C-alpha cells in the first residue's frame, strides 16, 4: 500500500512516498504561482527518487495551506455577499460585524437581512420574504459579486429557509455561487455565517487550486486516486473538496504534526513547524493534535471549526528582516523566496538569509550574506528565538517538561533550548513532515442529528452507526474504523426528550488496505 503525500505551502511544495509507515523517498520543491507546475515537479521528483519502488501507487493525498494563507494574508479572496434570513430577530449584529475591518472591506460584497428563519422547535420564526431575497440576488449580480453566503436562524436544525433562498438566488442570478451555512456548521449563527462567508470568498481560488491538483495528478500517469486533506487530518475525494475550501483550512499544521509524530516515533510532545510564512506551534497528544476549545479564530474571524489548537506567529523562512531599526516580519516573501532572498540572488534579507549567515544551514550562495554584520545577524536571530520560545511557552498547558519536535523548512530557526522543553528534536525528513502527514491521512465519516425520546447511550450508538456508514460510503475500510469524537447536546424546551448527537469516525482508505501489487 504505497501512497504519495504532497504538501503545498506558501513557499515550498513537498512530496513524500510512503510504503505503509516507511518513508521511501521525499523531496522538497518550490511552490509556483500557478500551483500546478510545482505539484507536477514534486510528483516527478519523488517518483524519480524512489526509482523502482515507485510502483503501484494507489493514492495521492494533497494538503495545502493555500486557503488559510489567503485569509491570513488577505489575498486571492473574492468578494462575497451575505443574505441572512433572520428578521425581525438579530438586526443589530449584521454579517461581517465582528470581522477585522481590513478583511471585511476586502470581502464584503453587500449585506442583506430579510425576514424569515425558524425557531428551535421547527416552527417558522416569521414568514420568509421571498421577494426581498429575489431583489437581493439581482442586486448581487448587478454588483458583479460572484459568490453569496446564505444563513438562516436555526438552519442546522431546519434548513428549508436556506434551501429555498438558494433556489431563488440560483433562479435570479445563475452565475452567483451559493454557500449555505447549514452545510458547514453547527448552532451559532454568527460563527456559522462567518465560515460560510469565508467559504464563499474562497470559492474561486478553490476551483482553480483543485483543478490544478487534478491536472497535475492526471499528467503524472500514476493512475492514483486523488484526495485532499482536511482540518482534522482526514481526507476527502477532490470533487468534495472543491465546494468546501474551509474544510481544508488547517490541514497543513495537522499534517505536519501527525507527520512529525510518525517520523520521530514520539506521541506526546510540543511541535513547532516553521514554514515559509509562519511558525505554527501545537501540542501533540497520543499522536493527534490537541484541539482548540470552542471558538477558533482564523485571520481574526471567529469560527466554530474543530481545529488543532495552534498558535501561529509571523516567523518563517521567508520572513522579511529589516535593518535600522531591526524588524522581524510580519511580511514574508512567501513563494518568491527562491528569487527574492539574498542567498538566491535577490535583494531582500529574509530569516533564511539570517540562518545561512549564522551558519545554521547551508543553502544557496552564502557569499551573498557575508557582508551582513555579525552583531546584526546575532540580534535578528535572538529576536526570532525569543518570538518562538515565547509562543511555545504560551501553548504549554502543564508544568512538566516535554520534548519539542522541530519541523518544517525553517526548523533550524528554532532555538536548541527553551524553558519547559526537555529536548528539541530535529525530526528526520522534518522538512517534509507535512507531506508525510498528508500521506498518512485517513477517511472520515460524520453524523450530526437530533434524536427524540431516546437514551443518551442509544442516541450515540445510533449516531455512531450512521457515521461509520458514512465513512464506508466515502471509501473507508470498515475493519480499520475507529471513533475519534463524540458529542451530545440535549436541546432544552423541545417537546419530549431530544438530544443532538454528533459522532466522527476515521478509517484507512479501503483502496489502500486492499490493494495488493499484481
Amino acid at each position, binding site marked *: 500500500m504505497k501512497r504519495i503525500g504532497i504538501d503545498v505551502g506558501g513557499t515550498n511544495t513537498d512530496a513524500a512516498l510512503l510504503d505503509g509507515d516507511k518513508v521511501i523517498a521525499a523531496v522538497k520543491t518550490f511552490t509556483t504561482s500557478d500551483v500546478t507546475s510545482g505539484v507536477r515537479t514534486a510528483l516527478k521528483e519523488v517518483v524519480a527518487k524512489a526509482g523502482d519502488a515507485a510502483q503501484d501507487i494507489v493514492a495521492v493525498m494533497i494538503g495545502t495551506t493555500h486557503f488559510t494563507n489567503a485569509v491570513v494574508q488577505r489575498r486571492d479572496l473574492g468578494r462575497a455577499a451575505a443574505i441572512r434570513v433572520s428578521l*425581525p430577530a*438579530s438586526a443589530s*449584529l449584521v454579517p461581517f460585524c465582528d470581522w477585522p475591518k481590513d478583511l471585511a472591506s476586502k470581502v464584503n460584497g453587500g449585506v442583506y437581512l430579510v425576514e424569515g428563519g425558524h425557531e*428551535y422547535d421547527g416552527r417558522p*420564526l416569521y414568514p420568509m420574504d421571498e421577494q426581498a431575497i429575489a431583489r437581493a440576488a439581482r442586486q448581487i449580480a448587478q454588483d458583479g459579486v460572484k459568490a453569496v453566503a446564505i444563513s438562516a436562524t436555526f438552519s442546522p436544525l431546519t434548513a428549508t429557509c436556506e434551501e429555498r433562498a438558494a433556489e431563488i438566488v440560483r433562479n435570479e442570478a445563475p452565475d452567483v455561487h451559493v454557500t449555505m451555512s447549514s452545510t458547514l456548521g453547527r*448552532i451559532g449563527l454568527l460563527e456559522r455565517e462567518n465560515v460560510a462567508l469565508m467559504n464563499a470568498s474562497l470559492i474561486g481560488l478553490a476551483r482553480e487550486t483543485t483543478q490544478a491538483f487534478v491536472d497535475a495528478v492526471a499528467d503524472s500517469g500514476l493512475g492514483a486516486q486523488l484526495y485532499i486533506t482536511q482540518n482534522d487530518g482526514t481526507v476527502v475525494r477532490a470533487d468534495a473538496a472543491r465546494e468546501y475550501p474551509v474544510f481544508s483550512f488547517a490541514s497543513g499544521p495537522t499534517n505536519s504534526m501527525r507527520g512529525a509524530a510518525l517520523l520521530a516515533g514520539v506521541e506526546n510532545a510540543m511541535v513547532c513547524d516553521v514554514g515559509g510564512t509562519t511558525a505554527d506551534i501545537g501540542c501533540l497528544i497520543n499522536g493527534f493534535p490537541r484541539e482548540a*476549545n470552542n471558538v477558533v479564530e482564523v485571520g481574526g474571524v471567529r469560527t466554530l471549526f474543530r481545529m488543532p489548537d495552534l498558535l501561529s506567529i509571523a516567523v518563517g523562512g521567508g520572513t522579511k528582516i529589516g535593518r535600522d531599526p531591526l524588524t522581524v516580519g510580519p511580511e514574508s516573501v512567501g513563494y518568491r523566496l527562491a528569487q527574492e532572498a539574498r542567498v538566491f540572488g535577490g535583494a531582500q534579507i529574509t530569516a533564511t538569509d539570517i540562518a545561512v549567515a549564522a551558519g545554521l544551514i547551508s543553502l544557496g550562495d552564502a557569499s551573498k550574506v557575508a557582508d551582513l554584520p555579525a552583531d546584526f545577524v546575532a540580534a535578528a536571530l535572538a529576536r526570532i528565538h525569543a518570538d518562538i520560545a515565547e509562543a511555545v511557552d504560551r501553548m504549554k498547558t502543564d508544568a512538566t517538561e516535554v520534548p519539542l519536535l522541530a519541523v518544517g523548512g525553517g526548523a533550524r530557526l528554532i532555538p536548541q533550548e527553551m524553558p519547559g522543553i526537555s529536548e528539541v528534536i530535529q525530526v528526520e525528513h522534518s522538512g517534509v513532515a507535512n507531506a508525510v502527514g498528508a500521506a498518512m491521512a485517513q477517511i472520515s465519516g460524520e453524523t450530526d442529528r437530533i434524536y427524540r425520546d431516546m437514551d443518551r447511550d442509544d442516541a450515540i450508538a445510533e449516531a455512531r452507526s450512521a457515521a461509520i456508514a458514512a465513512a464506508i460510503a466515502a471509501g473507508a475500510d470498515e475493519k480499520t474504523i475507529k471513533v475519534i469524537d463524540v458529542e451530545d447536546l440535549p436541546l*432544552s424546551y423541545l417537546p419530549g426528550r*431530544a438530544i443532538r448527537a454528533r459522532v466522527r469516525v476515521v478509517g484507512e482508505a479501503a483502496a489502500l488496505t486492499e490493494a495488493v501489487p499484481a
Partner: protein
Amino acid sequence: MNTLVQRSPSQTHRTLTADDIEALAVGAWILGTGGGGDPYQKLLNMRLLYDAGRQVTLMDPLALDDDALVAVLSNMGAPLVGQERLSDPEFALKPLRMMEEYLGRKFDAVMSLEIGGGNGVHPMMVAALTGYPVVDADTMGRAYPEAQMTSVAVAGLRCYPLTMADIRDNEVIIPRAASWRWMERISRKACTEIGSIAATCKAPRSGAEVKQHGVLYSVSKAINLGVNVLKARAEHSDPIEAVLSAANGLRLFTGKVVDIERRTTEGFLRGQARIEGLNDFAGQEMVVHFQNEFSVAYLDGEPIVMTPDLICLLDTVSGDGIGTDSLRFGQRVSVLALPAPAVFLSEKGIAAVGPRAFGFDLEFKSVFEESNT
C-alpha cells in the same frame, strides 16, 4: 437608613470606557458560574454603540434617592436559542418602555438582574441607548436560573409587575403574581411560547430598596476581575491566580474534562462534568453538577463546595469563564470557589439558593468556613 455625606456627581458617577466594557464582559462571564450566557454578543453590540459615540455612566448605588425608580433588566431564556437569535439593543429596550408606559412614570436608572453572564452587560446596551445611568449593583452577585433566587426575593420584596417583549409584535405584562415562584412559572411559560428568548423588565425597585437589598458594587467587581485577567494574560502571568487574588477565591481543582452528561428537564439544562486531575491534583477526580449554573462539586466522592458559594470553571490557560453549555471533552479547566454575597448565607438565603433548592440533599457548608478554621 444610610447616613451619607452628600457627594457630587463627579464622585458618584463615572463614565465607563470601552476598555471597562471589555473587562466587564470577561468578569461577568466568570461570575456567571457557568450560566447566564456568554456575554460575547452583548459586548459586540456595546462595541458598535461605543463606535457610534454612545457611552454608559456607572453610578454609586448609595447616590440613589430613596424614591428613585430603578429598572431591573434581563434577558430570559435558553442560551442555545441566544446563539441563533442574536442580542439586539433595541429589543432589550422594549420592555423598559412598556414598563414606563404601564407605570406612567419614567425610570431614573437601570440595573442588572444578575451580574453573571450576558445579563451583566445587558443593561449597558439599554443605558447606551437611553442615557439612563447604570446602578453599580445587581440582585444575585452571580447568575441563578430562577426568579425567586435573588436578593430582593430573599428579602421578601414585591415580585410584580413584569413586562416582557418578543421580537414580533407581542407584548406581555404580568401585573400581579402571588409569589416569586408564581412569577417564575408564569413568565417562564410565556417565554417558552415566544421562542425561549425574551427581553424582560422585572419588578421595578425604589432607590431605598436597591440600597438596602441589592448586591452592591457587583459591576465594579466584575470590571475589576476582568481587568486583572486581561492584565495577567498580557503579562503572561497566571490568570487563575489573578482571579483568586482579585476576588478572595480558592483554587479547588485543576484538570481535564473527561466526560460530560447533559439532560433537560423543566426547561433547565442539568447534568454533570467529570474532571480528571492534573499537576498537583493528579490521581484525583472532581465531578461538578449543574442546573444551568454549577451547583455542587464532589472531590473523590465528597461534596466540597456547593451553592450559594460561587463555583467557577475557568479555562486554565486563558482564565476565561466556561459555560455549562460550552463545556467540552478534553478542556483544561480550573475549578475555583468565590465567596457568596452575604444575603444568600442567611437562613432564608440558603432556603432559596442552597443545595436543596437544586435537588441536592446536602446540608450547606461553605468551603470558606472550612478554610478559615
